[in-house]
């Protein structure tokens, strides 16, 4: 993974206050890139093997509601919030504090598209 992509996502992490982790994984949950704020809380749960496949399943089910393809799932917990974006074949996961600016995270979606294209090339079979 080229260093400039990692640097870009690290800069992005600093821009949103209260954001702990940005993780890019494939749809099976294999992490491709992970940047985290080392001073902040330990959020290793985002790396749990069941985390991404659960989102993929939820996303597939939500797509059957007749409202079109599901793009984003926001999960609010007592101490965290998790924003997961369906960018198949990639899954983008943001983990932040419960009072983190959700709208700001959602606005990042279009900003990261160009960088995700580069990562997609590495994931898609030739």
């Amino acid at each position: 993974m080229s260093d400039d992509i990692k640097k870009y996502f690290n800069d992005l992490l600093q821009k949103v206050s209260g954001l702990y982790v940005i993780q890019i994984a494939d749809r099976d949950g294999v992490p491709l890139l992970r940047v985290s704020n080392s001073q902040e809380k330990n959020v290793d749960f985002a790396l749990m093997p069941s985390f991404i496949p659960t989102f993929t399943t939820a996303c597939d089910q939500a797509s059957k509601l007749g409202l079109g393809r599901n793009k984003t799932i926001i999960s609010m917990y007592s101490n965290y919030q998790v924003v997961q974006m369906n960018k198949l074949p990639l899954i983008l996961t943001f983990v932040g504090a419960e009072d983190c600016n959700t709208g700001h995270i959602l606005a990042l979606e279009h900003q990261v598209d160009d960088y995700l294209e580069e990562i997609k090339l590495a994931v898609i079979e030739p």
Partner: protein
Amino acid sequence: MEQQLEKVLSEILTQQDTVGALVANRQGLCLGAKGNINPNVSGIGMAISEQVAKLEPNSTLPATVCLYSGNKRCVIQKDGDITGIIYKQTTPATATTAATASTSANN
């Protein structure tokens, strides 16, 4: 449910030069938008107002941010849990009127 909010937004749009308005909640999510404004700017607008509020941490008055860009202005104000974002666009006609008024005031 949000009729009252829609009414307020419509009222804001009737003000001179105003082209769009939105309100965001404390999560930076758009509660309502009217006019020529992208609802996705709610998060960024709130982030700007939060950063600006840090300049005067002891101030009890809500900070107002005004961003100028060409003939457009973006006014952001955070009051408690609610953030309001208003887009204004100066049309050539109003700009001329304002310039004339300022010249006559100077004379």
